[in-house]
């Protein structure tokens, strides 16, 4: 099965369910296997951008565990208890982010537009969903593009210590913000040019059910 073709709302519901389970299960003994299973699932279905996600997930785990350890130690908890709680929290966050990363990476803005339009959702909901899930990957690509631009202009961001690399990565936020504002402006003009109207429900060219038609078959007259 191609997960990219599954209806966006089914994937979104599944992600919420996984998140619910992750936060309901007691302790790290259940949370950690669930987090591992989520990451293994992403790897098994070859979700694009997994390497970048894993880097982020590792950073998230380190930050969450460190902050919880400090917090609980200050409250007088023993290191053993603090470790189990911190690990459990990190596992929940990994499972949650993995679930929504899966939805984001396997849903194109077009398929989200189609699913939302077929469900006759209000245009504002359709727009917010498709832009939220569609623009994040574009901004991530822009983040990489800015890094390549810095390299191509002679800024050494590879052969430097980790802390410097992290500082340079954070500094990329400013041009990224400029780019995001520009992109938002361009999209708002495009929406007007192409007749998007908040007061009118959209239709879709795609056949939408459990699966969303990925491509128009030029020889097929069925609608």
């Amino acid at each position, binding site marked *: 099965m191609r997960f990219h073709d599954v209806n966006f709302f089914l994937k979104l519901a599944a992600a919420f369910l996984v998140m619910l389970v992750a936060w309901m299960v007691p302790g790290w003994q259940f949370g950690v296997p669930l987090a591992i299973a989520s990451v293994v699932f992403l790897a098994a279905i070859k979700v694009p951008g997994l390497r970048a996600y894993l880097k982020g997930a590792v950073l998230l785990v380190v930050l969450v565990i460190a902050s919880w350890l400090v917090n609980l130690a200050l409250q007088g908890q023993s290191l053993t208890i603090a470790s189990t709680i911190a690990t459990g929290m990190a596992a929940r966050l990994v499972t949650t982010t993995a679930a929504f990363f899966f939805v984001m990476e396997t849903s*194109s*803005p*077009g398929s989200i*537009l*189609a699913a939302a*339009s077929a469900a006759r959702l209000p245009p504002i909901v359709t727009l917010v969903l498709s832009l939220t899930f*569609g*623009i994040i*990957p*574009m901004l991530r690509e822009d983040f990489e*593009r*800015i890094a*390549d*631009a*810095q*390299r*191509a*202009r*002679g*800024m*050494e*961001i*590879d*052969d430097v210590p980790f802390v410097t690399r992290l500082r340079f990565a954070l*500094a*990329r936020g*400013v*041009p990224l913000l*400029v780019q995001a504002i*520009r*992109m938002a402006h*361009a*999209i*708002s*003009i*495009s929406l*007007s*040019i*192409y*007749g*998007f*109207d908040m007061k*009118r*429900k*959209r*239709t*879709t*060219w795609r056949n939408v059910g459990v699966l969303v038609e*990925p*491509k*128009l*078959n*030029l020889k097929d007259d069925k*609608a």
Partner: protein
Amino acid sequence: MLSIRNLSVGFGGGSPAVIEASLAVSSGRRLLICGAAGSGKTTLLSAAAGIIPRLVRPEVFSGNIDFDDRPVSSIPTDEWFGVVSIVTQNVEDQLWDLSVEDLIAFPLENRSVEKHQIRERIKALLSSLELNDLPGRGVLTLSGGERRMVAIAAALAAAPRLLVLDEPTIGLDPAARQRLVRILQKLHAEIPALLISEQDPASVSEVVDEIALLNSGTLSPAAPKAALFDQEAVWINAGVLPPRRRRAIRQSTLQLTTLLSVSGLKTRLTRTDGRAVLENINFDIHSGEIIGLIGRNGAGKTTLFQSILGLVKIASGSLVIGGQDAAGWTPARRARSIAYLPQNMRRVLFNMTLLQEVTFAITASTSIAKDPTMIDRAKGFLAKYGLAGFEETNPFALSSRQQALLGLACADAAGSPIAILDEPLLARDLHGRRMLDLFLDDAASAGRAVMLISHDLELVAEAASRVLVLDQGYIVFDGPTDEAWQSKSYQMLQWPKPSFQLSMEASHALS
């Protein structure tokens, strides 16, 4: 149909972008607005298409714009964008990560058109615009030419009465340009009226009837194209390179020092058929040399400079920069020897002011420069390329033309032995060309080398002493510019020869 009278538009600071312009486009008319970069073409077309002042509000706006004798301001937005469609110059601004069908269907879906009608319309447009191979593809994965054709298909989806195209041939290779012209001719019945802007009048001359010249915001009355083409003075007065001019040959200052040597380069990146994007690439670049690199969209030109800069990994081959093996060099270290200027400079700007951009080019550090000598030096480079007074401006606030000039200033300031200029936007107007020539002259006389990647064959013919032709991942020709146009490899591209070459061959035939 469309009537513009005494239109003035300004965005604050300096003179208005458009001054008292008047034009009329009636049904069946095809009008070309021709002018230099920064002459106000995009502003005028944005006003004609209703983007200004409906969606973008300028500080100065006066005059009248009517459509079918109704003031455009009285036409509801939804109705207006049903009768007028625009494809903007930066076509990427009109696209986001949608599929080809999504983008074409978007205007119809937004207007609640029934599914079966949308599907039929998509099929009809894909067929008439010769895009039948593209369903299912993401628009951002397409070549520049394909993207523009898909954007035109989307603009035609709602059957507008006036189609506005802002510099539609920018970034297209000669074959894609010919295809665009052929399709616009074929769609004559489907496009009741057409308003186009271009810097290069020759590129779309076959689809327009009349031309009006825009010079620093002032629009001349429209005249039949045949009456204008041979009047060299008219074009020069408008700041545009005349379409039928003589070739100006650059003096070669070639020296024997090898600055860059590429041998046996093969990329890890592969094409859809599994072949490497680049294979067995061999060439040298010498000091003082200006080299033209030409090839179809998708031939591998972008991948070539990315490989040289280390931004994409290579499977095999060697790269020697300044006599040193650069295999282990980071991209940043390579970039200190090779300055790269893309067509869209926004892609490589990331500092907050122009002054910081130039000081970064000199120091390769984002620290704010405090040394007065360094600051004066950076200001000197900005002034050299006409950007004095913009030192504290954010680079993203500049026009595309000014960003291209900033690119030249940065590359000059960096003093890198080699500069790669990817499709410079400046080449078609007189002032921009002077700036580009200044950069090329200074680079060559300082013993630096420039690789010019361009689809503008006249620019390559005039500026380059040597041409590389890249096709299907291989360098199929490497030799003197004058021999390139006669070569079998060039003929395989099925591109027209540069206009100078054609007129020279015609005069030889007559004699």
